[in-house]
């Protein structure tokens, strides 16, 4: 796989395609604040002061269970940042390095370094603030512990070395580049990588209030085409449905709505007919089969 093929998104923002991402993720305000403030502060300080003063690598780590919106937040952060910066624009680059990690023996390290130290800076060499999204970064930065050595090829460990070297170099040479890395499994991440993060932000499973908001927002969004669902979204008994879904991630919660619609042919034909009881039934069933579920509250 060529290094250039690893860049799956190269987009100058703001762009209307990304305008809903930030708002679509319901999570604690503090999570979004930490992410946005961390990026802004890093871009400002790293431009004015050298690395040996700031110790900033321009790396923000979002971690938490799958389905909590980490990747969407990372992309949405780039869109949110653009109007807050003097130039009004941000470049979003997203990397899928998995092809490099299965490269010919001995080449992973070289290709990872080439990607992060040469290709990415080249794409960003016009100096525009750039957000680089490294999704599921644990595939590139395995913990170099003894236990891991037996499970992972040496190549992968060398790739971790390359990532760390790239972060150190880019910290000094490219203060306009912010890297937002996401991870579902922080135990698998190398300590040296975690240590380089300017901020490590936990994106947790939604609490009951957040679940309620996710359900309401999903119904409201569908309501653009099916207005009766907007009325359903305002029903106070939605909170009872939300209770059933505690322990599930945001993605699963959103899917409850379409899951409920699919249960009857009438709602398949006309989703506007969706009722509260159908929603409740779908929630109960999903909660029972989901492995992440940690508690079940009665309706």
């Amino acid at each position, binding site marked *: 796989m060529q290094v250039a093929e690893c860049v799956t998104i190269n987009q100058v923002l703001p762009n209307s395609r990304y305008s809903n991402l930030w708002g679509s993720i319901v999570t604690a*305000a503090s999570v979004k604040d930490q992410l946005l403030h961390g990026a*802004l502060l890093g*871009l*400002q300080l790293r*431009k*004015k*002061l*050298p690395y040996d003063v700031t110790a900033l690598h321009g790396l923000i780590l979002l971690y938490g269970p799958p389905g909590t919106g980490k990747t969407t937040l990372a992309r949405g952060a780039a869109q949110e940042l653009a*109007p*807050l*910066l*003097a130039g*009004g624009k941000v470049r979003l680059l997203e990397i899928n390095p998995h092809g490099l990690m299965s490269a010919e023996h001995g080449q992973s390290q070289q290709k990872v370094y080439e990607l992060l130290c040469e290709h990415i*800076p*080249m794409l960003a*060499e*016009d*100096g525009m*603030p750039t957000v680089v999204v490294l999704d599921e970064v644990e595939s590139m930065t395995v913990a170099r512990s003894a236990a891991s050595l037996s499970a992972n090829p040496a190549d992968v460990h060398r790739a971790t070395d390359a990532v760390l070297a790239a972060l150190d170099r880019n910290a*000094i*040479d*490219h203060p*306009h580049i912010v890297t937002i890395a996401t991870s579902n499994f922080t135990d698998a991440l190398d300590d040296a990588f975690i240590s380089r993060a300017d901020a490590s932000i936990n994106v947790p499973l939604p609490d009951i209030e957040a679940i309620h908001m996710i359900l309401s927002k999903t119904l409201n969004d569908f309501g653009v085409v099916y207005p009766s669902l907007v009325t359903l979204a305002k029903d106070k008994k939605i909170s009872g449905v939300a209770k059933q879904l505690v322990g599930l991630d945001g993605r699963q919660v959103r899917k409850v709505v379409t899951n409920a619609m699919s249960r009857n042919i009438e709602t398949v034909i006309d989703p506007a007919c969706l009722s509260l009881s159908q929603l409740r039934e779908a929630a109960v069933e999903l909660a029972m089969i989901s492995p992440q579920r940690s508690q079940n509250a009665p309706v």
Partner: protein
Amino acid sequence: MHRYRRVAAAPSRRASDTWDVIGQLVISTLEKSPHISGSDVSAAMEIASAAGRMLVAGGHLEKHAIVVVADPVYLSITTVSGVMATNLEEDLTPVPGGTTAREWTIYVPTPDPIGDAVRLAIMGSSHLSAEEPPNESTTKLASSENESVLNLDAITRREREPR
């Protein structure tokens, strides 16, 4: 902002043609400034060409860059030879930032064994230097103190919006 450009040398180009391309890149970047004369840059690059061709042909520019410092421009130019030169995707467009440059210096590397020859060759221009280029952060600090990355108005408006 440190920027990099790589120029294809042999077998894509002879050393003298490679140096011409490097020269054109430097000229096109710096002449965008109303404070810099394109002909002055051209003259300096012509003086440096004697050393430049040797540096290209000897493979020295693959490891030691020509560095153009014209705040806010900080540009490192290296060459690539062999098979990689035939596959190289070059960007020879002028480097951004030149429009506001005032002072400019081109740092020419002096690797062994041609260091003395290079120093001798570039003595004819005050804009050519055989010294180590300054650390990029030094030049950055000098020019960036009053420039803000942030759009303070936009941030203030955002903070006032209801969550």
